């Protein structure tokens, strides 16, 4: 799950784009399972395979999904002030869950200093390697990379920008169509609106 890592854009635009994810571990049985995996890796693998084969693990995951709490949840912020306030709230709540912030390192570090926290682990994006001629143009990628799973098609962005230009739809309507494709809801709608309006011009 690296879906919020590779967001593209210039510094000014990225200053309006922060995502906070609050996560339990990706381990269905939480702490107990982690301890078991560390201490008895052989038994752990056998038990997990048995649970998978019997369909019990998937059943438990399905039940977990039906509950209102999601494994990965968190809002998108358009400014540093709101981000800092939210992080402060999370720190005070002390739920023990992991909190991950995606955004400009410099700005995020400023927020952390304000609430006396330091980064624990970071992930850098080293950019795109390979056959770059296959990519959509940068203006499109700035929008589509906001859905890290790439459920938003570059062709859809082009079409919606064209529809805005031809006054067939408003930019709000276009964003509604576009962000519906991003099932993780990490598409920053205010930022996406600015970008698609610029594209429509």
């Amino acid at each position, binding site marked *: 799950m690296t879906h*919020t890592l590779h967001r593209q854009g210039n510094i000014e635009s990225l200053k309006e784009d922060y995502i906070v994810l609050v996560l339990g571990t990706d381990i269905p049985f939480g702490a107990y399972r982690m301890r078991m995996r560390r201490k008895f890796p052989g038994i752990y693998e056998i038990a997990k395979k048995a649970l998978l084969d019997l369909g019990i693990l998937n059943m438990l995951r399905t039940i977990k999904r039906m509950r209102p709490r999601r494994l990965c949840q968190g809002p998108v912020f358009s400014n540093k002030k709101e981000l800092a306030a939210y992080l402060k709230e999370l720190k005070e709540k002390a739920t023990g869950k992991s909190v991950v912030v995606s955004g400009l390192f410099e700005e995020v570090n400023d927020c952390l200093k304000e609430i006396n926290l330091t980064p624990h682990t970071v992930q850098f994006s080293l950019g795109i390697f390979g056959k770059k001629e296959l990519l959509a143009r940068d203006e499109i990628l700035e929008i589509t990379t906001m859905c890290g799973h790439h459920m938003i098609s570059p062709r859809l962005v082009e079409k919606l920008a064209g529809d805005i230009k031809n006054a067939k739809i408003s930019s709000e309507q276009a964003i509604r169509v576009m962000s519906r494709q991003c099932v993780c809801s990490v598409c920053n709608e205010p930022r996406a609106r600015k970008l698609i309006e610029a594209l429509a011009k």
Partner: protein
Amino acid sequence: MRVNSKKCIGCMECIPYCPVGVIVPEGDKCMIDEDRCLECYVCLKADVCPVDALEKVPLKWPRILRHQFSSVAMIHKATGIDGRGTAEMKTNDVTGRYRHGEVGFTIDVGRPGVGTSFQDVEKISMAVAKVGVEFERMNPVTKLMADKSTGELRDDIKTERVLSCILEFKTEDTKTVSVINALRDVSRSVNTVFSVGCICRCRPDGTPPVKGVLDKAGIFYRPNGKTNIGLGRPLAP
């Protein structure tokens, strides 16, 4: 996915929704190139076809992999985890997956928006395996490897295509530049793109040691990325 040509009225509304552009006009109707369709179901979920002409096709092994890796919410049978990889650094304050002296990598093959064959995924996994890396055991691509020491994938899956999949591995921090050089080399021989993420545990003062390594080697990194702020409750000291 396929278009039921008896139902299709040729409105072409579904065409722009396909992330890899495989819905195309054919005469006065739409059709889906099934060889290139990645079974992400984005077109279906968009619910834009006024006559419900978009239909799922039965997915058997190994084609089911297309859906497992391309659709976001699918749980991988081999790992019991949804999404395309693990929580990697997001829960590092709890899991201790990446420790001091280690550097982690996430290689999103086919991303953004190009898609990839497993043949290309294998080229990358074999290139980094030569440097000496430890592939993440809970990752769904690792589960498809025939040999985790060489990065070789199972023969029966190599011709399948997916929207994106993630190679996850870690190694000693002294091998950071070697891994990136291996990625640069292999990038010339793949028919896709891949986005590279580089993970490290920070020092007590919050500075990431790998930043100095990247700076010294003149390796590009974006000004934005992900920061785990350490609020997770660790299981062990």
